């Protein structure tokens, strides 16, 4: 138990510290990288709670996919942090006051009195034969099949909405349709025009003699 506890405090401290860094860093790229660190350490906390599957998924999905995309967006966008921070000191006193009051209240309620080991005794250790991932999958696709289906519809809506809001034909768009390119015929691009020669006085050059140069002489 002792070593696990030690690990818990290490990871919990890193999570808190990196979360703090996320909101205080001046450089948005640094902030995103600290967020990645926060995610990784929370994944470690979940693994400590024996939720290995969720921990791994957190790293794979959030760190691997979402945060990388996020990093791209942050690098692409030219956000002027000075404007965003303009009123920071102005709102700081009120913000701090509200935060402190709320944090205290939450601490009183969510403290050890209501959520301690007395109210929530630690669950008994399960045998190694129980497969967490399997159990999770079983309950997801049996008991929670209805919510899972709803979640899938939500993802579909997210796709539709994102495409609707961003996909459009801009006049300055240089995009070329590959399908059109492939289906182009010679006749679409080259037109053979028969026309009379423009210069009627043009002297037809003497018989080209280059080829049989040395022969005629």
């Amino acid at each position, binding site marked *: 138990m002792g070593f696990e506890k030690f690990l818990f405090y290490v990871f919990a401290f890193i999570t808190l510290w990196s979360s703090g860094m996320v909101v205080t860093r001046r450089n948005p790229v640094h902030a995103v990288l600290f967020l990645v660190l926060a995610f990784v350490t929370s994944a470690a906390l979940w693994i400590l709670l024996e939720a290995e599957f969720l921990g791994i998924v957190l790293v794979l999905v959030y760190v691997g996919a979402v945060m990388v995309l996020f990093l791209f967006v942050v690098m692409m966008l030219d956000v002027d942090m000075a404007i965003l921070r303009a009123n920071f000191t102005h709102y700081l006193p009120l913000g701090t006051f509200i935060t402190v009051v709320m944090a205290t209240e939450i601490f009183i309620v969510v403290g050890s009195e209501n959520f301690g080991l007395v109210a929530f005794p630690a669950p008994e250790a399960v045998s190694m034969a129980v497969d967490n991932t399997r159990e999770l999958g079983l309950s997801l696709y049996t008991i*929670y099949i*209805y919510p899972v289906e*709803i979640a899938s*519809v939500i993802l579909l809506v997210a796709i539709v909405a994102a495409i609707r809001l961003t996909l459009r034909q801009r006049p300055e768009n240089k995009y070329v349709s590959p399908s059109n390119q492939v289906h182009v015929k010679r006749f679409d691009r080259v037109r053979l025009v028969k026309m009379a020669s423009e210069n009627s006085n043009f002297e037809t050059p003497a018989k080209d003699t280059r080829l049989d140069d040395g022969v005629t002489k």
Partner: protein
Amino acid sequence: MQFDAANLTTILPEITILVTACLVLVVDLYLKEKNKDVNHKLSLFGLVIAVALTGVVGGGERVVFFDGNLVHDRISDLLKGSILIVSLFVFVYARSWLKDRNMLVGEFYVLGLFAVLGMLIMVSANSFLTIYLGLELQALCLYALVAFDRDSKKGAEAAMKYFVLGALGSGMLLYGISMIYGATGTIEFGQVAQAIAEKGLSNQVLVFGIVFLVIGIGFKFGAVPFHMWVPDIYEGAPTPAVLILGSAPKIAAFALAVRMLVDGLQNLHSDWHGMLLILAVLSMGLGNLVAIAQTNIKRMLAYSTISHVGFIFLGLLAGSNQGYASAMFYTIVYALMAAGAFGILLILSRKGFDVENLEDLKGLNDRDSWYAAMMAIVMFSMAGVPPTVGFMAKLLVLEAVIRIDLVWLALVAVIFSIIGAFYYLRVIKLIYFDRPMLNLPELVTTNGVRFAMTINGLALLMLGLFPTALLSLCQAAFV
């Protein structure tokens, strides 16, 4: 677990809407620009079938399906039916506005139908998880619909505000749910109620959770002091989007409140009673007072929404079956009124011109006396003038409050509703006693829109004269 296919028959309306939305999504790809009306017809067809199926599978005793995630009872039947019918009106009104602005695209119908699907899911949810997912499905569609006019800066700003505040509201709701789960160990409403009954009522964590639940409900309803987003979004969003988000989602928000507070936390009524009381008084007061100062009709209707939410809360906080039934009656009627009011705004708009200000309604009677009459009915009904249904709705809610001996509250409500009558009657004065502006083009509408608006307006009158039909349905839902 054995899967029982009978589970699926209860969600046939939901399945119909889902299939229709997916069908529109695919069919839209193959439609030429001039045939986009097919989307419209398909959506209406799907909604009509869903209404019919709601009637077919409806009725019967309360049954829980899908391992406690879904419930089928009279509340869900009635609310599903009214959501679908209100949405029918919404789609009919929105068509010509979209067509004039080259926005009659499949995505509008897809997002609108998915929003309807989200509402249906919320209405019949039996666990915190399902209700939250339904809420998010509906909200996500509405965010996108508010930003639907991509070239409008105001629309983008409104969507951003809606998105951020909506996410904040959802976050509050989730935090509250996590507290309730922590205290009771379950997310199913029935089991939550059971756990509370067994463990006693004095749990600090539960009350703490309820605070956040009520804040979340307040956000979704747009009740004071969580109302800041309502006027800005009503003003900035394209009118069809406002029509969608101002009408049927109120019914879904009512379901959110009833499912969580009544199905799950009825035993803690004494705790949430006071919170709703504060929200109700503030909403009625601020909504009615600030609406007077508005010159923008969309903003005015936004503040009017806030005041109506106050009245709906009056019925809820009563905590009696009669109170819940009256709140349900009020919500359904309000959704119809909102659909009618925004429908008129859409009818009056034309290519290159949106009705934004109260002045745009001037002399409507000279331009089209039938629409003027319908708008007058809607306004009288919102003000609560007999014999329209708005009067019945207010009367029932007040009765519920008086029955729990809160006569002062009823008096406050009456006073604010008299103050509120001013700005509704001002609209009627503009319609009937002012000259229209010069050189206005003639009002052109299709027969379908005229037919729908006629039904919508006359329904408000008929329900006021013969309220028993709807009222008995509402009362039967809470027995």
